[in-house]
Structure formats: C-alpha cells, structure tokens
C-alpha cells in the first residue's frame, strides 16, 4: 500500500511539473509583449526584442497616456458597448435557455429547432451586412456594435445545460403555490443559476470587449471606433498616434517617438483590464461550463 501511494504521488508530481512547464510556455508570448512595451526604444532598435527588458523605460506609456484623446474615446465606446451588450445579452440568453430547459413547455422542441437552425445554416456575411446597413440603418451607430451579438446559440447551449440540472420539483411546487412564471424565473431560477450567469456573462463581455469585426464592417465615424479596432489601425499606421499627439501640443519629434514599444504598450492597455477582471470570476467557471445536448 505504501509503495502504491508513493508511486501515485510520483505521477502526480510529474503531471504537476508538466503543467508548470506548459503554463510557462503559454505565458512567454505575453511576457514578451509586456517586456517590449517596457523597454527603451533605442535598446529595441539595436538589440531587438528580449524577454526581459535590457533597458527599462516607461516612456511608451507616458507618451500614450499623455495625449490620449483617441484612446480614451475608444475606451469609452468599448466600455459602453460591453456593459449594455452584456446586460441585454445575458437577459435574452437566460430567458431563452430557461424556456427550452423546461420539460413541460409545449413549444420547447419547436423553439430549440428555431434557435439552433440558423447556426447550422445561415445567410452569411453579405445579407447580414446589407440588413444592418441598408435596411436597419445601423451603420455608424453604436447599436451596430451591440445588437448583432445579443443572442448566441452556443451560449444558450451552455446555459441550458446548466439549467437542465436545476431541480424541476422546486419550480413545480412554487408554481402550485401560485407564483407566475416571471416570478419563478426571477426569484428562483436566476439566483440558482449564478455560476452559469457569471460564466456566460463573462464570455459575452469578453466578446464585446475584444470585438473588432463589427467595427471593421460598420464603423467609419472616428468617434465610434472601439478599442480593438483602434489597436488594429495603429498596427497598420503609427501616424495615427503621432497626429493625435501633435494636436495636444506636446513637443513632438517623430524620430524620437518610441513606435515599437508604444505599439506593444497599446496592446497591453487594450487587453489589460479584462486580464485583471477574468481571474476574479474564475471560480465559477467549471460549474458554469456544462455543455448540454441539444435534444436534452
């Protein structure tokens, strides 16, 4: 018995070691980006990128945060879109998932087919583009960045998988006590579904926070550019940043501008807030992440 538990321990340690190495390997790319953003530009130009800054400097951040009109505007757009989108997305998703998880709902099968059919067969990019821009006239409005992601079948599937496991008897007995469906939903189902709501809520908010696709398609107005799209434009043209800096009358010399480290600093600033938020909600993930079968 003693030897067996020893052996188990040994395998456990090996697996743990394996995961430590894997985790390190996964982190290296992120460390590189942060390191570049914190390295002095001249050192980058002569020695290239290194995992640990050869010459530490926060100049890139200083410059970006000194003249950040475009950046703050983009933050504002993205934060608004994320908050509004997550709230309504979560509401719609949980309502839908709940009705199709109710075994006694007469139109459950119909509704399931109705919801999932379009994830198998869809109109594709062009009809969607024409609908949003020509018929709903959402082009260059903030709603074009919100509405298209409100209801995702995959999130419904995860939420339904969770709600399937809620004890049906509780719902039934509350119903017999005379509560109506809305009351059951808001006072029973929602509190019981917190892990799934947090998980899906976080997924939805990440989807909004990280989106560049809707901006790329529908936003030309400079004032409505979301964070990730701004980041992409900077990737292709650094002039954008320097133009904005010169308008806020900082003495500015383009040759002196830390374009390499500033790009990476932008990437860190764009990804940063969510990277901080995400580990805080981690503990809900596993219990919230159950993929149920469509047929139930």
């Amino acid at each position, binding site marked *: 018995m003693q030897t067996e538990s020893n052996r188990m321990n040994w395998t*456990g340690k090996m697996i743990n070691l394996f995961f430590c190495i894997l985790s390190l390997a996964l982190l290296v*790319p992120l460390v590189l980006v942060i390191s570049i953003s914190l390295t002095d530009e001249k050192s980058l130009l002569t020695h290239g990128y290194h995992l640990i800054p050869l010459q530490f400097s926060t100049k890139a951040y200083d410059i970006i945060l000194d003249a950040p009109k475009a950046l703050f505007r983009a933050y504002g757009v993205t934060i608004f879109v994320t908050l509004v989108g997550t709230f309504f997305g979560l509401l719609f998703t949980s309502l839908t998932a709940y009705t199709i998880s109710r075994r006694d709902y007469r*139109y459950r099968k119909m509704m399931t087919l109705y919801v999932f059919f379009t994830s198998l067969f*869809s109109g594709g990019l062009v009809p969607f583009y024409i609908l949003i821009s020509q018929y709903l006239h959402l082009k260059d409005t903030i709603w074009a960045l919100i509405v298209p992601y409100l209801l995702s079948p995959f999130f419904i599937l995860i939420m339904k998988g969770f709600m399937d496991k809620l004890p049906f008897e509780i719902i039934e007995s509350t119903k017999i006590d005379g509560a109506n469906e809305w009351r059951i939903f808001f006072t029973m189902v929602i509190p019981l579904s917190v892990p799934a709501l947090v998980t899906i809520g976080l997924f939805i908010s990440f989807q909004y926070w990280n*989106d560049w696709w809707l901006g790329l398609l529908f936003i030309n107005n400079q004032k409505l550019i979301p964070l990730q799209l701004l980041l*992409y434009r900077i990737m292709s043209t650094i002039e954008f940043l320097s133009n904005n800096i010169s308008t806020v009358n900082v003495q500015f010399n383009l040759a002196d501008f830390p374009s390499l480290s500033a790009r990476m600093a932008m990437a860190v600033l764009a*990804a940063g807030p969510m990277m901080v938020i995400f580990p805080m909600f981690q503990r809900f*993930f596993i219990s919230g992440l159950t993929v149920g079968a469509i047929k139930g």
Partner: protein
Amino acid sequence: MLQREWKHFKRNRELFVMSLPAILYKLIFNYLPLIGLVLAFKQYRFDLGIWGSKWIGLKNFEFFFKSDKAFTVTRNTILYNLTFIILTLVLALTLAILLNEISRRWIKVHQTILFLPYFLSWVVVGYVVFGFMDHKNGFMNVMLQAFGEQPIRWYEQAQFWPFIIVLTQLWKGVGFSTLIYYAGILSIDSSYYEAAKIDGASKWQMIRKITIPLLTPLIVILLIVAIGGIFRADFGLFYFIPNDTSFLYNATDVIDTYVYRSLRIVGDFGMSTAIGLYQSVVGFILVLLSNWVVKKINEDNSLW
C-alpha cells in the same frame, strides 16, 4: 382542433412571452438574412436593391469556381480546420484528463494560465505574433542570430505560416476546450471510479473504460458542430496573424478572408453571397451526414 390548441397555448402563454425576445431577434437577425441569399443569383446594384437587381442565374458561382482562387482558399480552409479539430480534440482531452489528476490547489493556477490566451482578441494576438516574427527586431530573429544563424524574413516566406497559424490557434484555443472537457469529467458520478477502484482497476483502465466512454456524448456534440463549420474559417486568425500580407495569401488565405476582400475592396456582393451560400450548404450537409453516421453507430450520441 384549433380551440384545443388555443387552450394549450393559454397554459404556455407566459413561457411563450419569455421566449418572445429570442423569437423576434432571431427572426430579424438570422431568418431575414436568409432571404438575402437570392443575391447569389443576382447582379446586385445598390440603387436597384435586392429585388430590383437583375437575375443572372449561376454566373456568380461560375465566376468564383472558375477562378484559380477557389481551389486555394477551399483547400486552405478545410486543411486548417481539419488540423485544428484533430489537434484540439487530442490535446484538450489529454490535458483535461491530466488536469483531473493533480491537486485542487494547483488546478486553479494552471486553469487560469491555460485559459488566459483565450481572452485576448485576435488583434492583440496579432501584436504578440509580430513580437516574435518581426524581421528586424523580432524575438525569433534575435534568437536565430544569437545561435549564429541568418535571420529570416518571416512575413515574406509562405512555407512557415501553416505552422505559425496552427500554433497560434492552439495557444489561444486549447485552454477553452480543455476546460469544457474538464467540466465534463467533473460531472461524472464519482461512484463509478470508487467501484472500479474496489475492483482493482488501474488509472489507465479507469480512463479508458470510464472517463472516455462517458465523455463520448460531449466529444461527439463538439465534433459534429466543428464539422459543420469546416467551411468557415476564423476571420480574425487568418486576417490579423499574417497581417493581411499578400505574399502569404497562398498559404493563409481562407474562404472568409477572400469573401471579406471581395466585398470590401472589390465590392462584389453577388459573388460574395454565392460563396457564403456555398459555405452554408456544404456545412449543413456535413452536419446532417455526420449526425446520421453517429446515429447509425449509437443512437444516444447523436445531436438530434
């Protein structure tokens, strides 16, 4: 008959009202665009609209399939997706099973790190890859030079990109699949394992005889969904990681980036719709087919 149905409806009315937001939303944003698919058979003109534009039969399809691009982008899309599906399944399943073997305290740490890249946008990941592959200062070239090798102009050499793209996709995506499988393993009733332990089963036997069979329904669901999407590529991955470099199109262009370019740069609505329809139809047939095959093997594992 109708009266009886009305009675039923009244009993389900409240739940129906609850699902109304989804019904209307799907109707507008997912079902209405299906009508737009007629554009695949029309020569679309903005001033004439969908209905006013001229019918041109299968010309749009012909135009695409006769171009030498059709083969390249279809091949790239399928090969990349097949690679992703197979590698993700094998890696994520292995990692999930291994994750289940280590102590709870450590799982939190590994889980967070595994998952972290998943929460970066493709634009940010594009910057990360650029940090490695940049010709002048990139980490890869710094390393190559440190070992006395010649630096490589990565963004001009198409042959490296299949590896870079697959690696990037795995780095970003495997954590998510791992956690889905891991959640699946956790929901397996522990009494199966206890019984097996009493019978003297080894870890390896438990994995083969309990874990994998009980995960099969989950694996099959994810697999069928993935097969349905085999003609659709992740636009962000193929657009931002090679940074839309035309040198690399032969190795990195997929159906979705090709459609985007022909829509936004050339403005060819008809052909873009035709390609979209081609993606939908083939994907749909593949899902039906794989579900049918699964059903033949084991009724319980099928998607419907």
